[in-house]
């Protein structure tokens, strides 16, 4: 299982598309930095099919005022959870 990191907003569509196309059926996706803009409910349709495998970094949501505006499908993790996700994955691939 691979952990994919995405730090670009959905406005950078090419990056989001490339990350999703590279994901296997068990892979996980963690939204960090501007990637957390993808956690807005309006963007939820981008990430359908990732039920239980979509994560968003709490600190980056909070800094942007998005913590209370986050779609339910995104599992919120703090930086300790980020470390755990990297422990559990065989490897980590960053998309930017």
């Amino acid at each position: 299982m691979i952990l994919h990191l995405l730090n670009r907003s959905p406005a950078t569509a090419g990056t989001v598309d490339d990350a999703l196309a590279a994901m296997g059926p068990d892979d996980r996706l963690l939204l960090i930095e501007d990637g957390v803009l993808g956690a807005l409910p309006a963007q939820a349709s981008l990430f359908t099919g990732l039920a239980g495998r979509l994560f968003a970094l709490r600190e980056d949501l909070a800094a942007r005022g998005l913590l209370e505006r986050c779609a339910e499908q995104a599992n919120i993790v703090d930086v300790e959870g980020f470390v755990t996700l990297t422990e559990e994955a065989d490897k980590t691939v960053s998309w930017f």
Partner: protein
Amino acid sequence: MRYALLVQGGPYSSQASHSALRFARAVVERGHRLDTVFFYHDGVYNAARLAAPPQDEPHLGDAWRMLHDEHGTELLVCIAAGLRRGLLDEREAARHGKAGHSLEPPFELTGLGQLVEAGLSHDRLITFSP
């Protein structure tokens, strides 16, 4: 586990360095070893010794040095990416006939092979890019 980080974003210009530093601290707090941070692309600018950010903002260079001092993490800067961007240690400055230097220990100029080595010899390599 043994971790290595690859940092490719310039300090301040992108959040990549902040994210990497935050993750680095969490990794060592969890009891993992963080052996290596490799700086590539604009990440090499993290090593600029003269950086003078405003007092009320985090000083990334100092924070990396502290990570090195407290946890022995090596701070490796790609020499090819560094030279063209003006990051020279005393030895490279002398070799290129330049007076002065812009990078100093604990940051070290090193070859790209060290990135490959870090990636393949550690349990985890995590990349932070702009």
